[in-house]
């Protein structure tokens, strides 16, 4: 799993790390049951604070992609790939809508039209 972050970006690093892990889960590079590298190790490899990676893992846990257990590490949950793909699409949609100046209501309406 390749994790690449841009220190010059305005997007917080923990979100970038979460996005990279999410993408790895979505593409199947990391499969359900796989253990993610310990936060300390990944943080050391990236040269960022350990709590930055922990925050990224917590975000992924809140999204239902991973499970964090004490002494067992961070494990990718079953069904995470499909959910990660959906989250990725939603993120792309949101980003594109913002780029075009749409607000949440307009984006929601767009979704409603697409849904029907």
């Amino acid at each position: 799993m390749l994790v690449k972050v841009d220190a010059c970006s305005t997007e917080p690093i923990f979100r970038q790390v979460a996005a990279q892990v999410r993408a790895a889960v979505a593409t199947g590079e990391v499969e359900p049951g796989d253990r993610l590298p310990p936060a300390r190790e990944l943080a050391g490899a990236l040269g960022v604070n350990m709590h930055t990676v922990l925050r990224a893992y917590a975000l992924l846990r809140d999204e239902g992609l991973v499970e964090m257990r004490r002494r067992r590490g961070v494990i990718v949950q079953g069904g995470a790939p499909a959910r990660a793909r959906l989250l990725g699409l939603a993120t792309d949609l949101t980003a594109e809508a913002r780029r075009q100046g749409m607000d949440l209501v307009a984006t929601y309406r767009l979704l409603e039209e697409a849904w029907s």
Partner: protein
Amino acid sequence: MSPASRRRAVTGGLAAAAALVAGVPWISVWGELPDPVATHFALGGDADGHLPRLVAAASTAGLGLVGAVALAVLGARARARPVAGATALVAGLAAVLAVLSGAVALANRGVGSWHDARLAGWVVLLAWAAMAGAAVMALRAMRSDAATEGSTTPPGARPRLKLGEGDRAAWTGTATSRWALPVGAASGALAVLVWFTSAPAWVALTILATGLPCLAFGSLRVTAGVRGVRVAAGPGWPRVSVPLERIAVAEAIDLQPSTWGGGVTAAVERSPAGRRGCCGPGTPCASSSSTAAQNAGLRRTRCPRPGPARPTPRTAQNAPDRASGSQLQAGHRAAGSAPPAGAARSRHIRPRRKLGRVLTFAP
């Protein structure tokens, strides 16, 4: 002579020598041997054990011949440096078995009874010397080709990881054995069962000691980042870290499970720097395919160039947490430069995930 040819010549020569030393004495003095023959000797050299002549010849010379054949096969099939240690081990075993086999035959030559056979003390020293010599020769043969043999991918076709200003990247991968973890778990369960039987305790402890390495090394995790490369066994220990400053080149290599150890995930080896034109801090690295190639490309971009690096404004503001990014960018900019003359020795990193099972180190 190509490195592979030299490797086969050395291992083949050692195997032939071991076969000759193990087998020829038995054949040449067969008619002068008593039956039974002495096969075990006390520390003083006096015989204290015997076997029928045919059984003794088959067992002692057979062991030496088996070692020679194993060495020949290993040397012929060895395609990667991580098997250097294994080849040296097999060469040493074959040599010591061959020398002892021949010595046993000669010790029984011309004696009326196996009681009269005597093994000189210097023979044991000779066996040890042969073992050491064969091991060193095999090790040198396996290692000597490291700097000239490697990826056949032309420099222009090597994958590169593009990192912009302020970018930083880390690669992590885990290789898990399909059989090591089940074997380790089964060994543990068997050890518990045996412990509660009437069997001696050492039997259970031996079974447990066999299974523990399987559990420990059934999974390996490699992480490459701004600080270098770190390889850790499944439980997190044992582990080894190679600082970025000591990495000269990173490349992906194909290792087959048929090589000793059942396959290799990663190897950290020493090699003289500069023997390959592209090796050296700040220069591109060889790489061949898939994930491992991505990994190799990642570390290529991080090869540091001697001298101060120019940090980006964002990096400078966030030091020390982000100071390592400047080092990364420095390596990125330096890609393609010539290796420094001062790099006398460096570390040669070869990660592999595809068939990874066992970690081999050749310090």
